Structures are given as structure tokens and as C-alpha cells.
């Protein structure tokens, strides 16, 4: 291994371009895979941010809503009933309705989220200020996406063209269906919703979904049927699913995951092909030198070690450059492009690329084993 390391080091010093050129090629592909993965990740998060912003174990929908947050309507008294189910620790309600936000003459679309403070429906990460508590009139918290448009804590915004509220806090990005969110107490939400959609019968007594936190040590899957049974006794048919399932049920999410997921998989497949192709070309290019090394006593393990090390260096350089390219692109594209890089996602892609490069390199290692030391004596062409 030491000899292999030395050989790679000497080669890197003597002709760095031989190692750097394939690294540049792979870097472009690494950047492609990272950009694709980040796009799908951002699109997904911007569709489901409302549900990701809270910490709950179970989500209760009325059965006609078919797991859609926007369509779900549960009578508020029913959510009180859920609180008495064995194994339930706490219940909160969360309701969503489309609205507009006007700030200093600029108008944009958003979703208005009504929520119970200090329950599982309260957003977990508050970046600035605070979140409104139940019963507080005409105040709101905005998510980081709205904050980026220039709205600050203390500013006044107009909801739905008619209700003026004061911003008291900023929470972490919690977009829903690609639009930013404004978080208000349930009463403010009911007033705004009733004005916008009179036929839907929005009222304080009718809320969207219930978010349930189960007691420590209890399995949410066991508590869910008890909630369904409890509410069935009150003549209310509900569907109780985990938060993860509710996130997956948001409209468009499965399509985004299937479409972009397939394309990311295709990109990774291309990386396998390219790394195999590059490694094979390099093995051919170095064939004469490898034969000479074999002829003077270097074993196949040394040559294989050299190849693996070169692939490792290539992968590391490509990933570093890919991360830089993807991060740079994310920083420069307009805000409308849903491209935000997360270290966890980049690390995952880098790991997948390591596997892809490894698979590609394995093909080259097979060919390397077949190099005959006698080739060093003859004309390689």
C-alpha cells in the first residue's frame, strides 16, 4: 500500500494533469447529480414545509379529505375528544387556506396557517421574535421564505386584501405547495378563510387537521386505531396517519419524487458508465508503464492499489469541485429556482458517487490484472 501511495504521489507531482483531467470530468457529473438531488429536495421541502415545521406523531384528517391538508375539515370539539384517547399526550389543530400578503404595496401569494400555540401544531424552529399565541388579535409570524422578500419583525402586512396584522416573529422555512406561509392564531385564520371561501363554511368550530403527539413509549401505530374508534363514536369518520405519510400525501410530492428520483438514478448510472470508461481509458493509456512495473517486480496488488488510490483521489477532487459548483450555482440562481443545497444531501450524493466510481473502477481492475509483464519487451501497438 505504501508503494502504491508513493507511486500515486510521484505521478501527481510529475504530471498533475493526468489525475486532474478525469477529476474535472467527474466533477461536472458530480455537480450534475448534486444539483439534481438538491432540486428534488428543495421542490419536496417547498411543497411540504408546513408539515415538516411541526413535530407530531400522527395527523388526523376527515375521511372525505383523502389525506389532503387543504381539504380536511374537522369539527373542533372532535379534537378535544382525541385528547382523551389512551396514549395521546397532546393535540393541536392546524388549518391552511390560500391568501395574499401585501407589504408596502408589494403583493404576493401565500398560505395562511391557523395553529394552536404550545401544542404539536406549533412550528418548532423560531428564528426571530416569537409565534402568536391563541386569542391574540391581529398578529402573525412569517416563514423564512417571506422574510427573504423584505418583511421584518414589527412590519405590518395585509392578509387577503383586508386584514392588517403585525409580524411578531420569523420561523424556519415552512412553505406549502411552493408558496410561503403566514402563521396566525386559529381565530384570525377562520375570519380570513370565511371571507375568502364563504361556501366552504370555514369557522372557528371547523378546523383543518389535528396533530397528535403520543405519550412517551407508546407506538403511534397502536394509538391511531383508537383515535379512529373514539371519533367514530361521535359519528365522525376520520383517517389517522403518521406525519411522514401525510408529507408524502401532499399533492405533487409523489410525482416530484418519482420524476426527479428517476432522473437522479439515471444520472448516477451515467456516472458509473463514465467512471468505468475513464478508468478503462487510463488503464489502456498506462498499459506500457504498468507492464514495465510488473516486469521489474511490482505485483498486481500494487497496481490495483495504485488504481484504487487514483480513483479515490479522483472521487475526492470531483466531489469537492462538485460541492463548490452546486453551492455556487445555488447562490447565484434567481430565487424562483428551487435550488437550495443541504450538507446532508450533498454527503448522500457524494456517497452514492463513491459507489458509482467504485463500480466503474472495478471494471478497470479486471483489465489491469490481465497485463502481461512481457508486454514491456515489445511494441504495445
Amino acid at each position, binding site marked *: 500500500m505504501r508503494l502504491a501511495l508513493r507511486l500515486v504521489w510521484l505521478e501527481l507531482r510529475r504530471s498533475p494533469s493526468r489525475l486532474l*483531467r478525469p477529476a474535472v470530468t467527474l466533477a461536472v457529473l458530480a455537480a450534475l447529480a448534486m444539483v439534481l438531488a438538491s*432540486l428534488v429536495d428543495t421542490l419536496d421541502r417547498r411543497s411540504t414545509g408546513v408539515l415538516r415545521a411541526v413535530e407530531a406523531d400522527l395527523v388526523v384528517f376527515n375521511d372525505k379529505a383523502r389525506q*389532503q391538508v387543504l381539504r380536511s375539515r374537522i369539527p373542533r370539539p372532535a379534537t378535544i375528544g382525541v385528547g382523551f384517547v389512551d396514549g395521546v399526550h397532546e393535540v393541536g389543530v392546524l388549518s391552511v387556506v390560500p391568501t395574499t400578503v401585501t407589504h408596502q404595496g408589494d403583493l404576493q401569494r401565500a398560505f395562511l396557517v391557523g395553529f394552536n400555540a404550545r401544542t404539536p401544531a406549533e412550528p418548532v424552529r423560531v428564528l426571530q421574535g416569537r409565534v402568536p399565541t391563541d386569542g391574540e388579535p391581529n398578529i402573525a409570524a412569517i416563514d423564512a421564505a417571506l422574510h427573504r422578500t423584505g418583511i421584518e419583525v414589527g412590519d405590518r402586512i395585509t392578509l387577503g386584501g383586508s386584514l392588517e396584522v403585525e409580524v411578531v416573529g420569523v420561523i424556519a422555512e415552512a412553505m406549502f405547495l411552493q408558496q410561503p406561509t403566514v402563521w396566525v392564531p386559529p381565530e384570525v385564520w377562520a375570519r380570513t378563510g370565511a371571507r375568502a371561501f364563504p361556501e366552504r363554511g370555514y369557522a372557528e368550530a371547523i378546523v383543518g387537521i389535528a396533530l397528535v403527539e403520543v405519550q412517551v413509549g407508546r407506538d403511534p401505530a397502536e394509538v391511531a386505531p383508537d383515535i379512529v374508534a373514539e371519533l367514530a363514536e361521535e359519528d365522525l369518520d376520520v383517517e389517522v396517519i403518521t406525519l411522514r405519510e401525510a408529507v408524502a400525501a401532499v399533492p405533487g410530492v409523489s410525482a416530484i419524487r418519482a420524476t426527479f428520483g*428517476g432522473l437522479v438514478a439515471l444520472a448516477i448510472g451515467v456516472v458509473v458508465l463514465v467512471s468505468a470508461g475513464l478508468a478503462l481509458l487510463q488503464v489502456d493509456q498506462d498499459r*506500457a508503464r504498468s507492464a514495465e512495473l510488473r516486469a521489474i517486480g511490482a505485483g498486481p496488488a500494487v497496481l490495483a492499489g495504485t488504481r484504487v488510490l487514483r480513483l479515490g483521489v479522483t472521487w475526492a477532487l470531483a466531489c469537492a469541485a462538485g460541492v463548490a459548483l452546486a453551492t455556487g450555482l445555488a447562490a447565484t440562481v434567481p430565487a424562483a429556482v428551487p435550488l437550495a443545497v443541504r450538507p446532508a444531501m450533498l454527503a448522500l450524493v457524494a456517497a452514492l458517487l463513491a459507489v458509482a466510481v467504485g463500480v466503474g473502477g472495478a471494471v478497470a481492475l479486471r483489465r489491469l490484472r490481465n497485463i502481461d509483464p512481457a508486454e514491456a519487451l515489445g511494441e504495445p501497438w
Partner: protein
Amino acid sequence: MGTARNLALSQLRRAPWRTVSVAGVLGALISLVVVFGVVGDAQIRSLSGALAANDADLWVLASGAQGALSASRVEPALLASVAAVEGVARVAPIGEVRVGVRIDGGALVDASLWGIDPGSPAAPPVIEGMPASDRHQAVVDAADRYLGAVPGARLELVDLPMTLHVVGMTEGRRFASIPTITIPYLRWAEIVDALNPDSDEVVPTAFAVELEPWADPDQVAAAISVAAPTLVAATPASLAAELPGIDGLRSSFSTAALVSLVAVAAVSAAFTRLQVEQELRVLATLRAIGATPRVLARAHQVRVALLVLLGSLVAAVLIGLAELFSPPRIPITLDIRTLATVTFATWAAAALAARRGLRALRTIDPADVLRAPS
């Protein structure tokens, strides 16, 4: 040219595996770029086709909805005010609501139910079957064929004891990426009324406007806002462009396609450059036996063009296979124009890289061939 072609072809034949692997890599990358373009277009059509491809000249929405169809409610009484605006030839109500549907007793799916009369300016053109004129009839989008939504199919509305029969199919008129069903407006109003028993009145989502041939859409839109200040008129295509998520989705696919295009160009250039460098010794041999640098450069460029062409064929096969085996909700199709454009860009990048690498031909010494290999 004949010598260059012979040289190029014999080089490709001599190393078939290398030829296949380079063409395979190029093909995979080219197909990736093409698929991004095609799938992106199809997804956007599926999300907004009902508006983007609508034949009405203008759609009139509630001004408070800020262009969001889901938030728009227009007072039926204002239909007469819009009809009275100079330049308006016809006005008709449009309704949209989400419903749960079982197609021929299959799985429960969400659907977008539109109330549009067959004679309305916004009526989708029927490509198979006939328009829905009876209260039990419906027209569906051909993209939902894979769910069984074809003429003759039964659509059960799960929230109501109601069944519709598919009598016709339209194309490219999907909305919100879910099955899209069109029924006569009055039937739609009945369904919405039944879904919301507590509401007093069912109001249309929008009005569709057909203009007189001489009328200017912008002027008429402005006149509508003056005649009814609670209304705003816009072309359906501009409303489609403003639908939530459209901008993000379009820019996502554009970014992905652009980065893929850069990747395919970079990879083809890198492979070409590596091959040129690897073959400098062969080139020196050919120089030693009398081949001019010009012939050798041509031979290499012919080979590059052939490899890119082969890659393009591989891409066409890969896209064809993806079209056959991908799930119906990922609508992959072979778009020849995009394929040709990407192939051209790939060839240009590879040809430039080869040209750069082949500069060494000018300085190559034919005597190199007599020296031992390095």
C-alpha cells in the same frame, strides 16, 4: 476525405469495445438532457394545460384572487356586465372543484372537475368521441387513459351517489397533474351544491370570454375591470404561467437540462481529449509512413462525429426503451428536435476538444516512432 474516412472507420472497428463504451456514455448523457426537456414540458402541461391551451380569448377572475384559480369566485350577476363590454362576443361561466373519483370501480383518485358547457369559448376540443352535453356525460383528458379513463368508462364520485359516463376525450388539457374531467356547467353547479349542503349559492370560478375579431384583448381586459371593478381579465396562457409551482417547476427542469448539457459537453470533450493523447504515438507512426497532419486531423474529426452520431442513436434507443417501460405518470417521449439540438452541442464540444488536442500534430516528430514507448 476517403483516406480520412477509411482511417476513422478502421480505428472504430479495431477497438469495438471502446467505441461501444464511449457511444454508450454519450448516449446516456444525451438521453438525460433530452428526457429533462421532454418530461419538464409534459409536467408543466399536466399542471397547467387546461389553462395554457385554452381556446378562450380571455378569462375573467375575481380580482381578490390575484390570479389564483382556487381562490377565485365571480358573482354570476356580473356575467351580464362582462357581456355588455364592447368587443366581447360571448361569455360563459367556468367552474373548477376537486373531487374523489373511481374510474370503472378502480382505485380512488383525486380529480379536477370542470364545469364548461360544450358551446363555451373555453370548451376543450374533443379528439375522440363527442362533447359532454348531457348531465350524465363527461369528457376526460387522453393523458389519463392509463387509469382507464376512455370513452365508455364509468366515473363514480365517491362523496356523492353520482355516476358520470365518459363520452369523449380531449388532449393536453390536464390541470394540477391529476385526472381532469369536464362536464356541462349546470351539472357542475349541482355537484358543488351537493358537496357543500350548507352553502346558499354556487358561484362560478371564472368567466370565459370570446372576443369580436376586431377587438384588442388588452383593451377589452381593461374595459372589463372598469365595468366590474371586482373582476380582472387576462389571457388563459398568462394565468397558466402564474399558477403556483409552475415557475419553480419550469426553472427546475431548465436548470437540470442546462447542467446536463454542460455535463454532456464536458464529458464528450474529456473523452475526446484523452483519446487524442493516447493515440499520439499511432499518429506519429502514421506521420512516419507519409500521412499528412491534415489527413490525420480529418480522420480524428470524422471519428468524433461518428461517435457522437452513434451516441445519439444509443440515446434514441434508450429514450424509446424509457418510453416503453417508464410509469405512465412520467410521460417520456422521443423529441427529435431536442435530440438533434443536444447531439449538435455534444458534437461541437467534442470537435473543439479534438481540435485542441490535435494541435500536437503540428509539432509531432515522425521519428518518435523509432524510440521506445514511454
